[in-house]
C-alpha cells in the first residue's frame, strides 16, 4: 500500500468483502427481498402466476373465512402449546434424571437423542405404522381381549393432531433434554453444595434455585421449539397427509397446497405471511429481551 494515495474506502478490506458476497446476497436478496416480495404479492390476486394486481386484504379475508385455514390454525395451536409444555417438562425431567450421577449415562442419552437424528418423514411413517388401528397398538390391545378398546388417532378427526404430537414429541424431546442437561451442567457445583449444607431437599433446590437460574436456557429452548413448531410440515405429510379429510391440516401445508397444487398463489402468499407474523410474535420480544438488555 503506498502512502501517497490512500486507497478508496470501498477497497479497504476488499478480500473480506468479496468473501462476504454470498452472505450479503443471501441476506438482501433471499431473506429481505424474498420476504418483502411475498408480503407484497399477498395483497394481489395472483393465481397460476404472480401478477401485481392489488386487491387489498381480500386474500386475508378469504383466508380467515376458510374452514381449512381455521382448522390448520387450531391444529397448530393445540400441537404447539401441548408439545411446548410436554417437551419442556419431559425434556427437563429426563435431563434432571440423567444429572444424578447415574451409571450408563451415555447410553441413556444416546437412546433419548437418536430420534432427533431421524427425519420427520421417517418419524411420521414409523408412527403411522405403530398407530395403525388394525395391526398397531389398538389391534394388539384388542387382541388381548379388550374388544372395545379404541385408540386410532390417525383415523379419528377429533384426535388426529394428538397422534401427530406423540410422534413429534418422540422425535424432539431428546433435543430439549440435551439443552436442559447442558444448562444443568452449567450450574455452579457450589450452589448444590450450599443447598446441601443449608439442608434444602433436592426437589426444592430444583424448583426454587436451579430452575430459576436456568431461565435463559428455558427461554432459548422455548424459542427454538416454537419456531420449529411453526414450520411443522413433513411430519403431517408423512403421517396423515393432512387427513382424515382436512382434520390434520397445518399452516405450512396449507401454504404448500395453495402455492403448488391449487394454483392460487395469492392465497398461499397470504397464508405464509400469517406464518411470518406468528414467528415474529415469538421471536421479536425474545430478541428484544435477549439483545436489547445486553446493550
Amino acid at each position: 500500500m503506498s502512502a501517497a494515495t490512500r486507497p478508496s474506502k470501498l477497497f479497504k478490506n476488499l478480500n473480506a468483502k468479496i468473501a462476504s458476497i454470498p452472505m450479503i446476497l443471501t441476506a438482501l436478496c433471499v431473506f429481505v427481498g424474498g420476504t418483502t416480495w411475498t408480503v407484497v404479492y399477498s395483497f394481489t390476486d395472483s393465481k397460476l402466476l404472480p401478477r401485481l394486481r392489488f386487491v387489498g386484504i381480500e386474500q386475508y379475508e378469504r383466508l380467515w373465512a376458510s374452514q381449512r385455514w381455521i382448522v390448520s390454525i387450531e391444529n397448530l395451536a393445540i400441537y404447539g402449546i401441548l408439545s411446548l409444555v410436554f417437551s419442556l417438562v419431559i425434556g427437563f425431567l429426563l435431563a434432571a434424571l440423567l444429572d444424578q450421577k447415574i451409571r450408563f449415562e451415555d447410553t441413556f442419552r444416546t437412546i433419548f437423542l437418536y430420534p432427533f437424528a431421524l427425519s420427520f418423514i421417517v418419524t411420521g411413517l414409523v408412527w403411522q405404522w405403530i398407530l395403525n388401528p388394525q395391526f398397531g397398538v389398538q389391534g394388539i390391545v384388542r387382541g388381548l381381549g379388550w374388544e372395545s378398546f379404541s385408540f386410532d388417532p390417525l383415523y379419528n378427526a377429533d384426535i388426529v393432531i394428538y397422534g401427530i404430537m406423540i410422534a413429534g414429541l418422540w422425535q424432539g424431546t431428546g433435543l430439549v433434554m440435551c439443552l436442559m442437561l447442558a444448562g444443568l451442567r452449567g450450574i455452579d457445583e457450589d450452589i448444590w453444595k450450599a443447598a446441601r449444607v443449608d439442608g434444602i431437599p433436592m426437589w426444592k433446590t430444583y424448583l426454587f434455585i436451579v430452575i430459576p437460574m436456568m431461565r435463559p436456557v428455558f427461554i432459548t429452548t422455548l424459542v427454538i421449539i416454537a419456531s420449529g413448531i411453526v414450520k411443522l410440515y413433513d411430519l403431517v405429510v408423512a403421517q396423515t397427509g393432512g387427513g382424515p379429510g382436512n382434520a390434520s391440516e397445518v399452516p405450512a401445508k396449507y401454504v404448500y397446497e395453495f402455492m403448488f397444487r391449487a394454483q392460487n398463489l395469492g392465497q398461499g402468499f397470504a397464508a405464509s405471511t400469517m406464518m411470518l407474523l406468528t414467528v415474529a410474535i415469538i421471536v421479536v420480544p425474545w430478541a428484544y429481551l435477549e439483545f436489547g438488555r445486553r446493550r
Partner: protein
Amino acid sequence: MTSVLVRDVSLNFGTVEVLKALNLDVPEGEFLVLLGPSGCGKSTLLNCIAGLLDVSAGQIFIKNKNVTWEEPKDRGIGMVFQSYALYPQMTVKGNLSFGLKNAGVAKDEIEKRIARTSEILQIGPLLERKPSQLSGGQRQRVAIGRALVRDVDVFLFDEPLSNLDAKLRSELRVEIKRLHQRLANTMIYVTHDQIEAMTLADRIAVMKGGVIQQLDAPQAIYNRPVNRFVAGFLGSPAMNFLDGELAAGPSFKIGATAVPLARYTFDGSASRIGPAVLGIRPEHIAFGDAAKASPFSQQVEVELVEPMGSDTLVWTRLGSQNLSFRVEAEKPLTVGDKVLIGFDPARASIFDSTAGNRI
C-alpha cells in the same frame, strides 16, 4: 476441648488416593488453615468434614459426635464457598433465610438471627438486593452471613477470597480475622495463599499429596519447616537453597566455603556427613556491618538488584549457586558492587538432599 476430629480419613477416587489416612485435631475456637498447592487434597478434606464428600475410610467427629454418616445439614457446620454460591434469584434476605425456613425455624427467630448477622457483617442496607446487584466483596460477605445465620459451632471456608482482587482480599482478610475474634468459633479455612494462611491462622496444616506435611503455629512453620517442600512453599521471596556437603565439625561446605554449624540445632542427635541442602531465607541474611558480627560471613559480588518498594532484593552468587538477600530500600547497591554478607546458621534449615527432610 476438641471441636473437629478427623481420624484416619482416606478418600479414593477410583484408584487415585486423594487423602491418605489423615489425622487432624482442631481444638474448640481455633482458626486452622489448610494450606497447599492445588491438588494437594485440602479442599477435598474440607468437603469431607462438611459431609459433601463421602470418606472411603476413617471417621469424622464434630463436637464429640461421630458425624461420619451424617448429612451436611446435621453436622452443625456452616460453609463459605469460593464462588460465593449465592442463590441468584433470591434477595440477600432470601439467601439468609431459605435454609432456616426449610429447617422449620420460627419466623421471629429467623428475623432475630438475620438482624444479628447483618449487624455483624454490616450488610443491613443490602438485605433487599439481589446478588447480581452486589459487588464481589459484598457477595462474599453475604455468603459468610449465610453460614453465620445457621448459628453453628464450626465454620468452613473453601478459598473464600480467591475470586476477589488483591485490595478487597486484604480488606476481607482482616474482617474474617475480626469475625473470628468476636465469635470465637472454630474455623477451618482452605487456601493456597500463604499470606492469608500466615495472617489468619492459629495453626497451619501444610498439605501435599493428600498428606499433612506439617501442622504447627505459623511462625514455627516459617522458621523450622520440616522439609524442603514446606520451606519452599512458605515465604516470599522464596528461601534460598544451597547444595553442599555436611562435614564433621559440624560444618556445611559449599564448594570451598565452609559454614560453621555450631549454633545449628539438629533434629535428632545423629550428626550426619554427606550431601545436603542448606536453606536460608533472604531476610535472614545480614549485609555490611551487620554481617561482620554473624558467625558466617563472605564477600560476594552484586549481580542483579530488584527494588520492591519497601525493600530491595539483591541477587548474588555463593560459589556457583544463586543467592538472594533482602536489604532496606535506601541502601544504594549497584551491579558489580563487592559486599560482605553473612547469616546466623541457627536461622538456617538443613535438609536431606534426597528425601528433603529436615536434618
